[in-house]
């Protein structure tokens, strides 16, 4: 019941932030209404970074402590982060097509983001291929630490290389920044998506804890 209430509150929050993004934030002059994709695209990208950062923290923690809880948090954060990066990879081309005239180009930012998604798909595949729990947790933690190296590359790619992708408007230094009402709409959207991130992370963590109980019970049943 508690989780249903949380989901309903979150739904209302997300719906109202989307309403604010459409009605309160002004229409951008050069791109027009298509720029409204910015609010979900960038907020999902930052939320994905938070999820992958959580996965990295859990992976490092597992390597040093070998606590199963760190492994559960690692896999939960990887899967939730992958969901957010999928939204980024779908909303990006929808935005790019009318603005650039193409759906996709293999520039540094787009390629590295695509690779980021593939790395975390590999992380989950690796886990499904190893049956022994301790070995699975250790190997995936080491792979997860390696996979996280792509996150700073994605973030800094538009600063380090010339790309088709626009230069940063958030934390982009002098000359960058958002119109005040756009900033409010963006921050509200990011806040709502962070709430969604926490809800999904919590649910996925509980699922992994339950899976561990099932594995333990299976071993117990086999011994008998």
């Amino acid at each position: 019941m508690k989780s249903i209430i949380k989901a309903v509150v979150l739904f209302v929050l997300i719906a109202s932030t989307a309403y604010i993004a459409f009605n309160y934030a002004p229409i951008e002059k050069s791109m027009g209404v298509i720029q409204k994709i910015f609010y979900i695209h960038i907020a999902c990208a930052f939320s994905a970074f938070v999820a992958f950062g959580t996965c990295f923290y859990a992976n490092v923690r597992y390597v040093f402590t070998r606590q199963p809880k760190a492994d559960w948090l690692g896999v939960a954060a990887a899967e939730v982060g992958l969901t957010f990066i999928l939204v980024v990879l779908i909303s990006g081309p929808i935005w790019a097509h009318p603005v650039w005239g193409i759906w996709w180009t293999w520039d540094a930012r787009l390629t590295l983001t695509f690779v980021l998604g593939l790395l975390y798909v590999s992380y989950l595949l690796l886990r499904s291929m190893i049956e022994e729990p301790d070995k699975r947790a250790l190997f995936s933690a080491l792979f997860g630490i390696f996979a996280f190296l792509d996150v700073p590359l994605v973030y800094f790619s538009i600063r380090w290389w010339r790309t088709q992708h626009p230069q940063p408007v958030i934390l982009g230094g002098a000359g960058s920044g958002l119109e005040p009402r756009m900033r409010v709409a963006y921050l509200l959207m990011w806040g709502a998506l962070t709430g969604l991130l926490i809800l999904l992370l919590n649910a996925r963590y509980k699922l992994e804890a339950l899976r561990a109980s099932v594995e333990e019970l299976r071993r117990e049943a086999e011994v008998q």
Partner: protein
Amino acid sequence: MKNLDSVLAAYLAGWAIFFLYYVSVARRMSSLRDEVERLKALVSKGK
């Protein structure tokens, strides 16, 4: 308004992905709960 359909498509795709993911987690959770009950019964029968 030009490109409004693209904006709606991007938002709907985003919400659909999150919704489907949440449903997938809930379904996996429910199937694991059933498995826990089944295994608990099996273990207690064996004792």
